[in-house]
């Protein structure tokens, strides 16, 4: 299996968060706050990998580096053979990215106008965009929302619109940050089916997604990377992770790997 995503000894440091006079005195502070430390793994073409970890573990930072929105401090990362630092334009030609937020649209344009705009920026012809928008929005249940201004849509609908945008141009590699966060359970299940059966199963799209929903991880991912405080604790198939941690559920495995214990509420 050819590698679609490769990470080698990836480090990411940020400057310390300072404000007020200190920020004024040192506008270009050094990079001292570690977010990712020595991350190495690869994702094969057509594979589905999940990133799991607590808030602040480095999942979003990792996805943003792959999406060319952040620069790594050290190490290398490539998408479909294109280095994220040396050839970001090459990376973007292969990429679909959903930031996980519920924004990222022009609120006074309709959903359809927004999708057409971003389709054009991804070099889709008008005819191809029309056909693809019809198909993707039907799959995501966005038909009725298509001609309404985005500012009038619910959070969940805008989230679905974001997912539609990320797959509209048929990317070879798809990065999703908490893809079903604002979706109702049925929409989330439908979207997972669509990802597994259509995008990955039929079109061979490589999928790397971050999620806090462990059932989602178990249903979709062929391998799971567990991050904690910027370090990669494990990277394996879900069943292998359970075996290696001698646990029966994914939740237990996560606690064991991170060395945390479940706090009981006081009686």
């Amino acid at each position, binding site marked *: 299996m050819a590698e679609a995503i490769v990470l080698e000894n990836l480090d990411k440091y940020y400057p310390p968060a300072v404000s007020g006079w200190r920020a004024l005195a040192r506008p270009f502070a050094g990079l001292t706050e570690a977010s990712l430390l020595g991350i190495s793994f690869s994702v094969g073409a057509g594979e589905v990998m999940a990133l799991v970890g607590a808030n602040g573990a480095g999942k979003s930072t990792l996805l943003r580096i792959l999406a060319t929105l952040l*620069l790594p401090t050290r190490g290398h990362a490539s998408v479909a053979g294109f280095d994220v630092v040396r050839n970001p334009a090459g990376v973007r030609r292969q990429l679909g990215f959903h930031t996980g937020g519920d924004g990222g649209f022009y609120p006074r344009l309709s959903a359809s106008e927004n999708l057409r705009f971003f389709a054009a920026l991804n070099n889709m012809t008008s005819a191809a965009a029309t056909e693809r928008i019809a198909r993707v929005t039907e799959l995501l249940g966005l038909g009725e929302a298509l001609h309404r201004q985005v500012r009038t849509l619910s959070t969940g609908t805008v989230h679905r619109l974001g997912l539609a945008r990320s797959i509209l141009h048929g990317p070879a590699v798809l990065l999703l940050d908490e893809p079903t966060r604002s979706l109702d359970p049925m929409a989330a299940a439908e979207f997972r089916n669509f990802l597994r059966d259509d995008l990955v199963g039929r079109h061979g799209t490589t999928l790397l997604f971050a999620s806090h929903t462990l059932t989602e991880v178990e249903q979709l991912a062929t391998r799971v990377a567990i991050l904690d405080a910027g370090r990669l604790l494990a990277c394996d198939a879900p069943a292998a992770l359970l075996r290696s941690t001698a646990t029966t559920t994914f939740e237990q495995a996560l606690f064991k790997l991170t060395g945390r214990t479940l706090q009981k509420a006081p009686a």
Partner: protein
Amino acid sequence: MIQKMTLAVRKLTIFFLRDLATARSYRAAFAIEAVQALLGVAGFYFVSRLVESPQLSRALPQGGNYFAFAIVGFAFFDYLAVALNAFDESIEQARQNGTLEVLLVTQTSLPMILAGSVIYPFVVMSLRVVVYLGWAIILFHFPTHNANWAGALIVLLAAILAFCGLGVFASSYLLLFKRGNPAKWLLLGISGVVSGMLYPLSVLPRSLQTIAHLIPVTYALDGMRAALLGHASFAELWPSIGMLLLFAIILLPLSFLSFSRALRRTKITGTLTHF
């Protein structure tokens, strides 16, 4: 090559249509703008009647009346303001509605995104100038008998290129420091005083006249007045056009370099979407 150009035109058009659709959703704005333009032109007309004198007319480089001199200066100076504000506003807006990251992961280059973001403001500015001049011609006897409209258009295009260089340069600051833009206000402030927007350069002290010749808006206003009021031929307009193109050739690459460096810095610090 032709395919790339077609794609570029299509992308610029889609940016324009995006901003047009947003503006269309605020229906009353254009009508209010037209009335505002009328009031602005009327104000200039009555002030110019107060100060009009043969002495003043002789002091103007193209002769003629002060009203025409001032209205051209006022209308075309605004192109500089548009160039300096439009890049900043598009970045600020994209940060606030969360589209900045989404735009940057598309298959569209940074210069194209920047260019696309300012097409609509420049088109609206041009319509505003048409309304200004329209009111001035219809109601206040703005002289048009010997205007070189084609020459004026070329001066305008060269000026827009030079001003965009300044605009992109200034917006690098916003990208890095998030709020306030001293570079923009300094440029607008200095240009407002020394470019000869409302008075001829000859009234300025020599030191300010020297500064005036170092900023592009001076050449833009000079060329525009020469084309519209001074019956200037293309050959006579060439010094102004040449200087504006020289500014563009120097400023545009430098400004894109500075913007790219600022963007790179935000990708290192993770502050791209902070505001």
